[in-house]
Protein backbone atom coordinates (compact mmCIF):
# COMPACT_ATOMS: atom_id res chain seq x y z
CA UNK A 1 0.00 0.00 0.00
CA UNK A 2 1.83 3.16 -1.16
CA UNK A 3 1.80 6.04 1.31
CA UNK A 4 0.97 8.97 -0.93
CA UNK A 5 0.29 9.64 -4.60
CA UNK A 6 2.83 8.18 -7.01
CA UNK A 7 3.24 8.96 -10.68
CA UNK A 8 4.36 6.16 -12.98
CA UNK A 9 4.60 7.95 -16.32
CA UNK A 10 5.95 11.29 -17.47
CA UNK A 11 2.50 12.09 -18.78
CA UNK A 12 1.06 11.69 -15.29
CA UNK A 13 3.87 13.81 -13.88
CA UNK A 14 3.14 16.69 -16.26
CA UNK A 15 -0.67 16.52 -16.11
CA UNK A 16 -2.63 19.57 -15.01
CA UNK A 17 -4.72 17.51 -12.60
CA UNK A 18 -2.42 15.34 -10.51
CA UNK A 19 -3.94 15.00 -7.06
CA UNK A 20 -7.47 14.44 -5.77
CA UNK A 21 -7.44 18.01 -4.48
CA UNK A 22 -7.00 19.24 -8.05
CA UNK A 23 -10.14 17.45 -9.22
CA UNK A 24 -12.08 18.71 -6.24
CA UNK A 25 -10.73 22.23 -6.81
CA UNK A 26 -11.66 22.15 -10.49
CA UNK A 27 -15.20 20.98 -9.75
CA UNK A 28 -15.87 23.48 -6.94
CA UNK A 29 -14.07 26.28 -8.74
CA UNK A 30 -15.95 25.90 -12.01
CA UNK A 31 -19.32 25.61 -10.29
CA UNK A 32 -18.57 28.70 -8.18
CA UNK A 33 -17.26 30.68 -11.16
CA UNK A 34 -20.18 29.80 -13.41
CA UNK A 35 -22.88 30.51 -10.82
CA UNK A 36 -21.25 33.58 -9.28
CA UNK A 37 -23.70 36.12 -10.81
CA UNK A 38 -26.52 34.34 -8.95
CA UNK A 39 -25.25 35.39 -5.56
CA UNK A 40 -22.81 38.21 -6.34
CA UNK A 41 -24.65 41.41 -7.15
CA UNK A 42 -23.62 44.92 -8.08
CA UNK A 43 -20.52 45.95 -6.19
CA UNK A 44 -19.42 42.38 -5.48
CA UNK A 45 -19.82 41.32 -9.10
CA UNK A 46 -17.63 44.28 -10.05
CA UNK A 47 -15.11 43.00 -7.55
CA UNK A 48 -15.13 39.61 -9.25
CA UNK A 49 -14.59 41.27 -12.64
CA UNK A 50 -11.72 43.37 -11.29
CA UNK A 51 -10.26 40.25 -9.73
CA UNK A 52 -10.15 38.58 -13.14
CA UNK A 53 -8.70 41.66 -14.85
CA UNK A 54 -5.87 41.90 -12.36
CA UNK A 55 -5.44 38.14 -12.38
CA UNK A 56 -4.74 38.26 -16.12
CA UNK A 57 -2.26 41.11 -15.66
CA UNK A 58 -0.57 39.36 -12.72
CA UNK A 59 -0.26 36.12 -14.68
CA UNK A 60 1.47 38.10 -17.43
CA UNK A 61 3.90 39.63 -14.95
CA UNK A 62 4.44 36.24 -13.38
CA UNK A 63 5.59 34.92 -16.76
CA UNK A 64 8.01 37.82 -17.20
CA UNK A 65 9.19 38.06 -13.61
CA UNK A 66 8.53 34.69 -12.03
CA UNK A 67 9.39 32.36 -14.89
CA UNK A 68 12.02 34.33 -16.78
CA UNK A 69 13.32 36.38 -13.85
CA UNK A 70 13.17 39.69 -15.75
CA UNK A 71 12.25 42.62 -13.51
CA UNK A 72 9.54 44.74 -15.07
CA UNK A 73 8.33 47.82 -13.25
CA UNK A 74 6.35 48.95 -16.30
CA UNK A 75 3.61 46.36 -16.26
CA UNK A 76 0.89 48.87 -15.41
CA UNK A 77 2.03 51.01 -18.33
CA UNK A 78 1.61 47.96 -20.58
CA UNK A 79 -1.91 47.55 -19.20
CA UNK A 80 -2.39 51.20 -20.08
CA UNK A 81 -1.26 50.52 -23.64
CA UNK A 82 -4.03 47.94 -23.94
CA UNK A 83 -6.64 50.21 -22.40
CA UNK A 84 -5.70 53.18 -24.60
CA UNK A 85 -5.70 50.97 -27.70
CA UNK A 86 -9.27 49.92 -27.01
CA UNK A 87 -10.37 53.41 -26.02
CA UNK A 88 -8.82 55.17 -29.02
CA UNK A 89 -9.97 52.55 -31.52
CA UNK A 90 -13.51 52.73 -30.17
CA UNK A 91 -13.60 56.51 -29.97
CA UNK A 92 -11.73 57.52 -33.13
CA UNK A 93 -12.45 54.61 -35.50
CA UNK A 94 -15.69 53.29 -34.04
CA UNK A 95 -14.25 49.80 -33.69
CA UNK A 96 -16.23 47.50 -31.44
CA UNK A 97 -14.53 47.62 -28.04
CA UNK A 98 -14.88 43.88 -27.44
CA UNK A 99 -13.33 43.00 -30.78
CA UNK A 100 -10.54 45.50 -30.07
CA UNK A 101 -9.38 43.56 -27.00
CA UNK A 102 -7.17 41.13 -28.97
CA UNK A 103 -5.69 44.16 -30.75
CA UNK A 104 -5.02 45.68 -27.33
CA UNK A 105 -3.15 42.52 -26.43
CA UNK A 106 -1.09 42.72 -29.60
CA UNK A 107 -0.30 46.42 -29.12
CA UNK A 108 0.91 45.81 -25.57
CA UNK A 109 2.82 42.73 -26.73
CA UNK A 110 4.66 44.91 -29.26
CA UNK A 111 5.44 47.39 -26.52
CA UNK A 112 6.56 44.52 -24.31
CA UNK A 113 8.93 43.42 -27.06
CA UNK A 114 10.42 46.92 -27.17
CA UNK A 115 10.80 46.81 -23.39
CA UNK A 116 12.68 43.53 -23.75
CA UNK A 117 15.37 45.14 -25.92
CA UNK A 118 17.43 46.40 -22.94
CA UNK A 119 17.31 42.91 -21.42
CA UNK A 120 19.52 41.52 -24.19
CA UNK A 121 22.45 43.49 -22.86
CA UNK A 122 21.47 44.23 -19.29
CA UNK A 123 20.48 42.26 -16.26
CA UNK A 124 18.85 42.68 -12.90
CA UNK A 125 18.92 46.20 -11.57
CA UNK A 126 19.77 47.78 -14.94
CA UNK A 127 16.66 46.19 -16.37
CA UNK A 128 14.64 47.39 -13.38
CA UNK A 129 15.81 50.95 -14.09
CA UNK A 130 15.05 50.66 -17.80
CA UNK A 131 11.52 49.53 -17.07
CA UNK A 132 11.12 52.20 -14.40
CA UNK A 133 12.09 54.83 -16.97
CA UNK A 134 9.71 53.26 -19.48
CA UNK A 135 6.90 53.40 -16.93
CA UNK A 136 7.38 57.13 -16.38
CA UNK A 137 7.79 57.88 -20.09
CA UNK A 138 4.63 55.95 -20.94
CA UNK A 139 2.73 57.69 -18.16
CA UNK A 140 3.86 60.97 -19.71
CA UNK A 141 2.75 59.89 -23.17
CA UNK A 142 -0.65 58.84 -21.82
CA UNK A 143 -1.03 62.21 -20.16
CA UNK A 144 -0.35 63.82 -23.55
CA UNK A 145 -2.96 61.67 -25.32
CA UNK A 146 -5.72 62.88 -23.09
CA UNK A 147 -4.80 66.13 -21.35
CA UNK A 148 -8.35 66.45 -20.07
CA UNK A 149 -7.64 63.18 -18.23
CA UNK A 150 -10.35 60.82 -19.44
CA UNK A 151 -11.17 59.17 -22.73
CA UNK A 152 -14.72 57.94 -22.52
CA UNK A 153 -15.60 55.00 -24.71
CA UNK A 154 -18.93 55.34 -26.57
CA UNK A 155 -21.53 52.98 -25.17
CA UNK A 156 -22.62 51.70 -28.55
CA UNK A 157 -19.16 50.22 -29.21
CA UNK A 158 -19.50 48.05 -26.11
CA UNK A 159 -22.39 46.10 -27.63
CA UNK A 160 -22.54 42.90 -29.61
CA UNK A 161 -25.93 41.69 -30.94
CA UNK A 162 -27.77 44.06 -28.66
CA UNK A 163 -26.09 42.82 -25.49
CA UNK A 164 -24.25 45.51 -23.55
CA UNK A 165 -20.89 44.14 -22.39
CA UNK A 166 -19.83 47.17 -20.38
CA UNK A 167 -21.04 45.96 -17.01
CA UNK A 168 -22.78 43.30 -14.98
CA UNK A 169 -23.41 39.71 -15.96
CA UNK A 170 -22.42 39.84 -19.67
CA UNK A 171 -19.07 41.45 -18.80
CA UNK A 172 -18.57 38.87 -16.05
CA UNK A 173 -18.97 35.94 -18.42
CA UNK A 174 -16.87 37.61 -21.12
CA UNK A 175 -14.07 38.19 -18.60
CA UNK A 176 -14.45 34.66 -17.28
CA UNK A 177 -14.10 33.15 -20.75
CA UNK A 178 -11.02 35.23 -21.54
CA UNK A 179 -9.51 34.45 -18.13
CA UNK A 180 -9.97 30.70 -18.50
CA UNK A 181 -8.42 30.66 -21.97
CA UNK A 182 -5.45 32.80 -20.92
CA UNK A 183 -4.88 30.90 -17.68
CA UNK A 184 -4.86 27.57 -19.49
CA UNK A 185 -2.42 28.99 -22.00
CA UNK A 186 -0.21 30.30 -19.19
CA UNK A 187 -0.26 26.95 -17.40
CA UNK A 188 0.78 25.24 -20.61
CA UNK A 189 3.51 27.77 -21.31
CA UNK A 190 4.85 27.23 -17.80
CA UNK A 191 5.03 23.43 -18.07
CA UNK A 192 6.11 23.30 -21.71
CA UNK A 193 9.50 23.71 -23.28
CA UNK A 194 9.21 27.51 -23.37
CA UNK A 195 8.53 27.65 -19.64
CA UNK A 196 11.45 25.37 -18.90
CA UNK A 197 13.68 27.51 -21.12
CA UNK A 198 12.55 30.61 -19.21
CA UNK A 199 13.32 28.98 -15.87
CA UNK A 200 16.74 27.99 -17.16
CA UNK A 201 17.43 31.58 -18.26
CA UNK A 202 16.26 32.83 -14.88
CA UNK A 203 18.44 30.46 -12.88
CA UNK A 204 21.61 30.80 -14.94
CA UNK A 205 21.56 32.41 -18.34
CA UNK A 206 25.09 31.40 -19.28
CA UNK A 207 24.39 27.75 -18.52
CA UNK A 208 21.12 28.02 -20.42
CA UNK A 209 22.95 29.31 -23.47
CA UNK A 210 25.46 26.47 -23.24
CA UNK A 211 22.75 23.81 -23.34
CA UNK A 212 21.41 25.39 -26.51
CA UNK A 213 18.61 27.69 -25.34
CA UNK A 214 18.23 30.86 -27.37
CA UNK A 215 18.51 33.26 -24.45
CA UNK A 216 17.74 36.42 -26.43
CA UNK A 217 14.59 34.96 -27.92
CA UNK A 218 13.45 33.52 -24.60
CA UNK A 219 13.80 36.90 -22.91
CA UNK A 220 12.01 38.66 -25.76
CA UNK A 221 9.20 36.11 -25.64
CA UNK A 222 8.87 36.43 -21.88
CA UNK A 223 8.37 40.17 -22.19
CA UNK A 224 6.13 39.88 -25.25
CA UNK A 225 3.84 37.28 -23.69
CA UNK A 226 3.74 39.23 -20.43
CA UNK A 227 2.86 42.32 -22.44
CA UNK A 228 0.08 40.49 -24.27
CA UNK A 229 -1.52 39.46 -20.99
CA UNK A 230 -1.20 42.99 -19.64
CA UNK A 231 -2.73 44.39 -22.83
CA UNK A 232 -5.75 42.09 -22.68
CA UNK A 233 -6.19 42.97 -19.01
CA UNK A 234 -5.99 46.65 -19.91
CA UNK A 235 -8.51 46.18 -22.72
CA UNK A 236 -10.93 44.52 -20.33
CA UNK A 237 -10.30 47.33 -17.86
CA UNK A 238 -11.22 49.85 -20.55
CA UNK A 239 -14.41 47.91 -21.22
CA UNK A 240 -15.20 47.80 -17.52
CA UNK A 241 -14.54 51.43 -16.67
CA UNK A 242 -16.47 54.43 -17.92
CA UNK A 243 -13.35 56.32 -18.97
CA UNK A 244 -9.67 55.61 -19.48
CA UNK A 245 -7.21 57.91 -17.72
CA UNK A 246 -3.51 57.66 -17.02
CA UNK A 247 -3.90 57.55 -13.25
CA UNK A 248 -5.19 54.00 -13.52
CA UNK A 249 -1.78 52.88 -14.75
CA UNK A 250 0.76 54.57 -12.50
CA UNK A 251 3.93 53.23 -10.93
CA UNK A 252 1.89 52.36 -7.85
CA UNK A 253 -0.20 49.93 -9.91
CA UNK A 254 3.00 48.42 -11.32
CA UNK A 255 4.29 47.91 -7.80
CA UNK A 256 0.95 46.45 -6.75
CA UNK A 257 1.19 43.92 -9.57
CA UNK A 258 4.79 43.20 -8.57
CA UNK A 259 3.54 42.69 -5.02
CA UNK A 260 0.80 40.31 -6.19
CA UNK A 261 3.36 38.15 -7.98
CA UNK A 262 5.94 38.22 -5.20
CA UNK A 263 3.43 37.62 -2.41
CA UNK A 264 1.43 34.98 -4.25
CA UNK A 265 4.31 32.97 -5.57
CA UNK A 266 6.76 33.97 -8.30
CA UNK A 267 7.14 31.17 -10.82
CA UNK A 268 3.82 29.58 -9.89
CA UNK A 269 2.08 31.21 -12.81
CA UNK A 270 -1.59 30.45 -12.21
CA UNK A 271 -2.09 29.61 -8.56
CA UNK A 272 0.57 31.95 -7.24
CA UNK A 273 -0.87 34.89 -9.16
CA UNK A 274 -4.37 33.99 -8.04
CA UNK A 275 -3.40 34.02 -4.37
CA UNK A 276 -1.56 37.30 -4.80
CA UNK A 277 -4.49 39.03 -6.48
CA UNK A 278 -6.86 37.56 -3.90
CA UNK A 279 -4.83 39.08 -1.07
CA UNK A 280 -3.74 42.39 -2.54
CA UNK A 281 -6.70 43.29 -4.71
CA UNK A 282 -9.89 41.65 -3.48
CA UNK A 283 -8.81 41.22 0.13
CA UNK A 284 -7.33 44.66 0.47
CA UNK A 285 -10.18 46.48 -1.29
CA UNK A 286 -12.72 44.89 1.05
CA UNK A 287 -10.61 45.48 4.14
CA UNK A 288 -10.07 49.08 3.11
CA UNK A 289 -13.74 49.76 2.45
CA UNK A 290 -14.73 48.35 5.81
CA UNK A 291 -11.92 49.99 7.79
CA UNK A 292 -11.89 53.40 6.18
CA UNK A 293 -15.20 54.69 7.59
CA UNK A 294 -13.94 53.58 11.01
CA UNK A 295 -10.61 55.39 10.61
CA UNK A 296 -12.27 58.49 9.23
CA UNK A 297 -14.69 58.42 12.12
CA UNK A 298 -11.77 58.40 14.54
CA UNK A 299 -10.32 61.44 12.76
CA UNK A 300 -7.49 59.40 11.29
CA UNK A 301 -8.33 59.92 7.63
CA UNK A 302 -4.67 60.54 6.82
CA UNK A 303 -3.96 56.94 7.86
CA UNK A 304 -6.86 55.78 5.73
CA UNK A 305 -5.15 57.25 2.68
CA UNK A 306 -1.63 56.03 3.47
CA UNK A 307 -2.44 52.60 4.90
CA UNK A 308 -2.23 51.15 1.41
CA UNK A 309 1.40 52.21 0.98
CA UNK A 310 2.35 50.87 4.38
CA UNK A 311 0.61 47.51 4.00
CA UNK A 312 1.78 46.97 0.43
CA UNK A 313 5.38 47.91 1.21
CA UNK A 314 5.56 45.84 4.37
CA UNK A 315 4.04 42.76 2.72
CA UNK A 316 6.44 42.92 -0.24
CA UNK A 317 9.54 43.36 1.93
CA UNK A 318 8.53 40.73 4.48
CA UNK A 319 7.66 38.13 1.86
CA UNK A 320 10.89 38.62 -0.08
CA UNK A 321 12.99 38.29 3.04
CA UNK A 322 11.14 35.53 4.87
CA UNK A 323 9.20 33.61 2.23
CA UNK A 324 10.64 34.15 -1.25
CA UNK A 325 8.41 31.43 -2.72
CA UNK A 326 5.30 33.28 -1.69
CA UNK A 327 2.00 32.34 -0.11
CA UNK A 328 1.73 29.22 -2.20
CA UNK A 329 4.71 27.76 -0.33
CA UNK A 330 3.01 28.59 2.95
CA UNK A 331 -0.11 26.76 1.79
CA UNK A 332 1.98 23.80 0.73
CA UNK A 333 3.58 23.61 4.14
CA UNK A 334 0.18 23.72 5.81
CA UNK A 335 -1.04 20.98 3.50
CA UNK A 336 1.96 18.80 4.28
CA UNK A 337 1.49 19.37 7.98
CA UNK A 338 -2.14 18.31 7.79
CA UNK A 339 -1.32 15.33 5.59
CA UNK A 340 1.22 13.99 8.05
CA UNK A 341 -0.66 14.98 11.16
CA UNK A 342 -0.32 13.79 13.90
CA UNK A 343 2.84 11.87 13.01
CA UNK A 344 5.08 14.39 11.32
CA UNK A 345 8.62 13.26 10.76
Amino acid at each position, binding site marked *: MPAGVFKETYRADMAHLRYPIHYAGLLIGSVLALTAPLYLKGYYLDQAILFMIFLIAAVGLNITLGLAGLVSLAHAALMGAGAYTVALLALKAGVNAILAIPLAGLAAAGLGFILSLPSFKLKGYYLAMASLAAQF*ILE*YIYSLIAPEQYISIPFETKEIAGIFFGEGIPLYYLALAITIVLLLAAANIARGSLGRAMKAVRDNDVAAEIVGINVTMTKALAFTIGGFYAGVAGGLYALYSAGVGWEGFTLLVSIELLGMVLIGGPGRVVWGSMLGVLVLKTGWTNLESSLNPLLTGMGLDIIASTAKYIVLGTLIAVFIILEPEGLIAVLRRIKEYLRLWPYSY
Partner: protein
Amino acid sequence: MDAGLIIESTFRGITIGVIYSMIALGFNIVYRVNKSINFAHPVIVLMAAYVALVVSYNHSPLVAYIAAIASGIVASIAVERLVARPLLGRPPIALIGATLGVYYLVKGVTITIGGGETASLPLPYKLYRLGPINLGFNDIVALVGSLTALLVIILLHKKTRLGSAMRAVAEDVEGAAAYGIPVRRLMVLSWALAGLVGALGGIFLAVKNQVSVELEFYAIRALAASLLAGLDSMGGVIVGGIILGVAEELGGLFLDDYLPGIGYDLAFFILLLVLFVKPYGLFGTERIERV
Protein backbone atom coordinates in the same frame (compact mmCIF):
# COMPACT_ATOMS: atom_id res chain seq x y z
CA MET B 1 15.46 83.28 -27.55
CA ASP B 2 16.51 85.71 -24.88
CA ALA B 3 20.10 85.03 -23.81
CA GLY B 4 19.40 86.12 -20.26
CA LEU B 5 16.69 83.51 -19.96
CA ILE B 6 19.07 80.81 -21.17
CA ILE B 7 21.76 81.87 -18.73
CA GLU B 8 19.29 81.92 -15.88
CA SER B 9 17.92 78.50 -16.79
CA THR B 10 21.42 77.08 -17.04
CA PHE B 11 22.26 78.45 -13.65
CA ARG B 12 19.08 77.04 -12.16
CA GLY B 13 19.98 73.72 -13.76
CA ILE B 14 23.40 73.77 -12.15
CA THR B 15 21.93 74.54 -8.73
CA ILE B 16 19.44 71.70 -8.88
CA GLY B 17 22.07 69.54 -10.60
CA VAL B 18 24.41 69.74 -7.63
CA ILE B 19 21.59 68.52 -5.40
CA TYR B 20 20.89 65.73 -7.88
CA SER B 21 24.58 64.83 -7.65
CA MET B 22 24.35 64.48 -3.93
CA ILE B 23 21.30 62.23 -4.05
CA ALA B 24 22.91 60.23 -6.85
CA LEU B 25 25.99 59.79 -4.67
CA GLY B 26 23.76 57.94 -2.21
CA PHE B 27 22.73 55.46 -4.91
CA ASN B 28 26.36 54.95 -5.91
CA ILE B 29 27.74 54.45 -2.40
CA VAL B 30 25.25 51.64 -1.81
CA TYR B 31 25.81 50.19 -5.26
CA ARG B 32 29.53 49.92 -4.64
CA VAL B 33 29.15 47.68 -1.60
CA ASN B 34 25.93 45.81 -2.39
CA LYS B 35 26.06 45.69 -6.20
CA SER B 36 22.42 46.62 -6.41
CA ILE B 37 20.23 49.69 -6.56
CA ASN B 38 18.76 50.85 -3.30
CA PHE B 39 15.25 51.85 -4.29
CA ALA B 40 14.59 52.91 -0.70
CA HIS B 41 16.97 55.84 -1.17
CA PRO B 42 14.45 58.29 -2.75
CA VAL B 43 12.12 57.93 0.18
CA ILE B 44 14.88 58.77 2.66
CA VAL B 45 15.17 62.09 0.84
CA LEU B 46 11.44 62.63 1.29
CA MET B 47 11.45 61.49 4.90
CA ALA B 48 14.32 63.80 5.91
CA ALA B 49 12.52 66.80 4.44
CA TYR B 50 9.35 66.00 6.38
CA VAL B 51 11.22 65.29 9.61
CA ALA B 52 12.86 68.71 9.29
CA LEU B 53 9.44 70.28 8.74
CA VAL B 54 7.66 68.51 11.59
CA VAL B 55 10.45 69.12 14.11
CA SER B 56 10.71 72.76 13.09
CA TYR B 57 7.12 73.31 14.30
CA ASN B 58 8.22 73.09 17.92
CA HIS B 59 11.98 73.49 17.91
CA SER B 60 14.66 75.74 16.53
CA PRO B 61 15.64 75.23 12.85
CA LEU B 62 19.07 73.91 13.85
CA VAL B 63 17.51 71.11 15.90
CA ALA B 64 15.19 70.35 13.00
CA TYR B 65 18.02 69.96 10.51
CA ILE B 66 20.05 67.79 12.88
CA ALA B 67 17.00 65.61 13.52
CA ALA B 68 16.43 65.25 9.79
CA ILE B 69 20.02 64.16 9.15
CA ALA B 70 19.90 61.74 12.08
CA SER B 71 16.64 60.25 10.85
CA GLY B 72 18.12 59.69 7.38
CA ILE B 73 21.18 57.93 8.80
CA VAL B 74 19.14 55.79 11.19
CA ALA B 75 16.65 54.81 8.49
CA SER B 76 19.41 53.89 6.09
CA ILE B 77 21.21 51.74 8.69
CA ALA B 78 17.89 50.09 9.52
CA VAL B 79 17.38 49.20 5.85
CA GLU B 80 20.88 47.69 5.76
CA ARG B 81 20.36 45.69 8.93
CA LEU B 82 16.83 44.47 8.34
CA VAL B 83 16.63 44.19 4.55
CA ALA B 84 19.95 44.25 2.73
CA ARG B 85 21.92 42.02 5.06
CA PRO B 86 19.50 39.07 5.10
CA LEU B 87 19.40 39.30 1.32
CA LEU B 88 23.17 39.15 0.74
CA GLY B 89 23.86 36.42 -1.78
CA ARG B 90 20.34 36.38 -3.17
CA PRO B 91 19.69 37.45 -6.78
CA PRO B 92 19.57 41.23 -7.33
CA ILE B 93 15.81 41.18 -7.89
CA ALA B 94 15.35 40.29 -4.21
CA LEU B 95 17.01 43.49 -3.02
CA ILE B 96 15.23 45.54 -5.71
CA GLY B 97 11.83 44.22 -4.67
CA ALA B 98 12.51 44.47 -0.95
CA THR B 99 13.80 48.04 -1.13
CA LEU B 100 10.80 48.98 -3.27
CA GLY B 101 8.69 47.57 -0.45
CA VAL B 102 10.58 49.68 2.06
CA TYR B 103 10.10 52.65 -0.24
CA TYR B 104 6.32 52.40 -0.02
CA LEU B 105 6.35 51.57 3.67
CA VAL B 106 8.42 54.64 4.59
CA LYS B 107 6.47 56.79 2.15
CA GLY B 108 3.23 55.83 3.86
CA VAL B 109 4.65 56.53 7.31
CA THR B 110 6.14 59.84 6.16
CA ILE B 111 2.91 61.10 4.65
CA THR B 112 1.00 59.97 7.74
CA ILE B 113 3.31 61.89 10.06
CA GLY B 114 3.87 64.91 7.82
CA GLY B 115 0.25 65.14 6.77
CA GLY B 116 1.28 65.30 3.10
CA GLU B 117 1.52 69.06 3.38
CA THR B 118 3.38 71.52 1.21
CA ALA B 119 5.29 74.04 3.30
CA SER B 120 8.53 75.98 3.46
CA LEU B 121 11.31 75.33 5.90
CA PRO B 122 12.21 78.18 8.26
CA LEU B 123 14.95 80.20 6.58
CA PRO B 124 15.55 83.95 6.25
CA TYR B 125 14.45 85.10 2.82
CA LYS B 126 16.45 87.50 0.71
CA LEU B 127 16.78 88.00 -3.03
CA TYR B 128 19.98 88.94 -4.80
CA ARG B 129 20.41 89.91 -8.44
CA LEU B 130 23.46 88.90 -10.43
CA GLY B 131 23.11 90.15 -13.99
CA PRO B 132 20.26 88.09 -15.46
CA ILE B 133 20.26 85.68 -12.52
CA ASN B 134 17.81 85.99 -9.66
CA LEU B 135 19.36 84.40 -6.63
CA GLY B 136 17.50 83.71 -3.41
CA PHE B 137 19.27 83.17 -0.13
CA ASN B 138 17.83 79.65 -0.14
CA ASP B 139 19.45 78.92 -3.52
CA ILE B 140 22.83 79.99 -2.17
CA VAL B 141 22.43 77.80 0.90
CA ALA B 142 21.45 74.82 -1.23
CA LEU B 143 24.23 75.31 -3.77
CA VAL B 144 27.07 75.99 -1.34
CA GLY B 145 25.87 73.43 1.19
CA SER B 146 25.50 70.57 -1.23
CA LEU B 147 28.73 71.36 -3.05
CA THR B 148 30.63 71.37 0.26
CA ALA B 149 29.05 68.13 1.43
CA LEU B 150 29.78 66.46 -1.92
CA LEU B 151 33.42 67.48 -1.88
CA VAL B 152 33.92 66.45 1.75
CA ILE B 153 32.49 62.99 1.15
CA ILE B 154 34.40 62.43 -2.08
CA LEU B 155 37.66 63.57 -0.46
CA LEU B 156 36.94 61.34 2.53
CA HIS B 157 36.57 58.52 0.10
CA LYS B 158 39.66 59.27 -1.95
CA LYS B 159 42.19 60.50 0.58
CA THR B 160 41.65 58.92 3.99
CA ARG B 161 42.45 55.44 5.34
CA LEU B 162 38.76 54.91 5.97
CA GLY B 163 38.08 55.79 2.35
CA SER B 164 40.63 53.34 1.01
CA ALA B 165 39.15 50.62 3.22
CA MET B 166 35.74 51.41 1.75
CA ARG B 167 37.16 51.24 -1.74
CA ALA B 168 38.70 47.88 -0.91
CA VAL B 169 35.31 46.54 0.21
CA ALA B 170 33.73 47.85 -2.96
CA GLU B 171 36.42 46.20 -5.05
CA ASP B 172 36.42 42.74 -3.52
CA VAL B 173 34.59 41.75 -0.35
CA GLU B 174 36.47 38.49 0.29
CA GLY B 175 39.83 40.02 -0.48
CA ALA B 176 39.16 42.92 1.89
CA ALA B 177 38.07 40.54 4.62
CA ALA B 178 41.27 38.50 4.14
CA TYR B 179 43.30 41.63 4.83
CA GLY B 180 41.50 42.14 8.11
CA ILE B 181 39.24 44.97 6.98
CA PRO B 182 35.98 44.91 8.97
CA VAL B 183 33.69 44.37 5.99
CA ARG B 184 30.39 44.29 7.85
CA ARG B 185 31.10 47.50 9.73
CA LEU B 186 32.16 49.26 6.55
CA MET B 187 28.98 48.14 4.81
CA VAL B 188 26.93 49.66 7.61
CA LEU B 189 29.06 52.79 7.37
CA SER B 190 28.46 52.98 3.62
CA TRP B 191 24.72 52.78 4.11
CA ALA B 192 24.94 55.39 6.86
CA LEU B 193 26.84 57.65 4.49
CA ALA B 194 24.17 57.07 1.84
CA GLY B 195 21.54 57.99 4.41
CA LEU B 196 23.49 61.13 5.26
CA VAL B 197 23.71 62.36 1.67
CA GLY B 198 20.08 61.39 1.12
CA ALA B 199 18.98 63.40 4.13
CA LEU B 200 21.16 66.36 3.14
CA GLY B 201 19.72 66.12 -0.37
CA GLY B 202 16.22 66.17 1.08
CA ILE B 203 16.98 69.19 3.24
CA PHE B 204 18.59 71.17 0.42
CA LEU B 205 15.78 70.26 -1.98
CA ALA B 206 13.30 71.42 0.63
CA VAL B 207 15.28 74.61 1.20
CA LYS B 208 15.51 75.32 -2.51
CA ASN B 209 11.91 74.48 -3.33
CA GLN B 210 9.47 73.45 -0.66
CA VAL B 211 8.68 70.43 1.46
CA SER B 212 6.17 68.44 -0.56
CA VAL B 213 5.37 64.91 -1.65
CA GLU B 214 6.89 65.83 -5.02
CA LEU B 215 10.40 65.66 -3.55
CA GLU B 216 10.54 61.90 -3.99
CA PHE B 217 10.32 62.35 -7.76
CA TYR B 218 13.44 64.52 -7.70
CA ALA B 219 15.14 61.69 -5.89
CA ILE B 220 13.93 59.12 -8.43
CA ARG B 221 15.16 61.32 -11.27
CA ALA B 222 18.56 61.51 -9.58
CA LEU B 223 18.85 57.87 -10.61
CA ALA B 224 19.49 59.16 -14.13
CA ALA B 225 22.41 61.25 -12.85
CA SER B 226 23.76 58.24 -11.02
CA LEU B 227 23.58 56.07 -14.11
CA LEU B 228 24.97 58.75 -16.38
CA ALA B 229 28.02 58.97 -14.14
CA GLY B 230 28.33 55.21 -13.91
CA LEU B 231 26.93 53.37 -10.93
CA ASP B 232 30.29 52.73 -9.30
CA SER B 233 31.85 56.15 -9.85
CA MET B 234 32.02 58.69 -7.04
CA GLY B 235 33.35 61.96 -8.48
CA GLY B 236 31.45 61.41 -11.72
CA VAL B 237 28.12 62.09 -10.05
CA ILE B 238 28.89 65.83 -10.06
CA VAL B 239 29.10 65.78 -13.85
CA GLY B 240 26.09 63.48 -14.12
CA GLY B 241 23.98 65.60 -11.80
CA ILE B 242 24.83 68.88 -13.49
CA ILE B 243 24.20 67.46 -16.97
CA LEU B 244 20.84 66.19 -15.76
CA GLY B 245 19.89 69.46 -14.06
CA VAL B 246 20.86 71.64 -17.02
CA ALA B 247 19.20 69.27 -19.49
CA GLU B 248 15.97 69.42 -17.50
CA GLU B 249 15.91 73.20 -17.29
CA LEU B 250 16.94 73.83 -20.90
CA GLY B 251 14.71 71.01 -22.15
CA GLY B 252 11.81 72.55 -20.31
CA LEU B 253 12.68 75.95 -21.80
CA PHE B 254 12.99 74.87 -25.43
CA LEU B 255 10.63 71.90 -25.74
CA ASP B 256 7.77 72.94 -23.53
CA ASP B 257 5.84 74.50 -26.41
CA TYR B 258 5.80 71.23 -28.32
CA LEU B 259 5.67 68.74 -25.47
CA PRO B 260 4.11 70.32 -22.38
CA GLY B 261 5.79 69.31 -19.15
CA ILE B 262 8.61 67.40 -20.84
CA GLY B 263 11.33 68.93 -18.61
CA TYR B 264 10.88 66.59 -15.69
CA ASP B 265 10.47 63.51 -17.83
CA LEU B 266 13.67 64.20 -19.73
CA ALA B 267 15.53 62.40 -16.93
CA PHE B 268 13.92 59.13 -17.95
CA PHE B 269 14.79 59.62 -21.61
CA ILE B 270 18.39 60.24 -20.53
CA LEU B 271 18.22 57.12 -18.38
CA LEU B 272 17.01 54.96 -21.27
CA LEU B 273 19.54 56.50 -23.66
CA VAL B 274 22.42 55.76 -21.28
CA LEU B 275 21.18 52.21 -20.75
CA PHE B 276 21.06 51.56 -24.47
CA VAL B 277 24.26 53.32 -25.49
CA LYS B 278 26.65 53.14 -22.56
CA PRO B 279 25.15 51.16 -19.68
CA TYR B 280 28.22 51.55 -17.48
CA GLY B 281 28.03 55.32 -17.65
CA LEU B 282 30.60 57.97 -18.43
CA PHE B 283 32.99 57.20 -15.58
CA GLY B 284 31.95 53.72 -14.50
CA THR B 285 34.10 50.64 -14.90
CA GLU B 286 32.80 48.11 -17.36
CA ARG B 287 32.05 44.81 -15.74
CA ILE B 288 33.16 41.80 -17.67
CA GLU B 289 31.45 38.63 -16.63
CA ARG B 290 33.49 35.48 -16.37
CA VAL B 291 31.83 32.12 -16.52
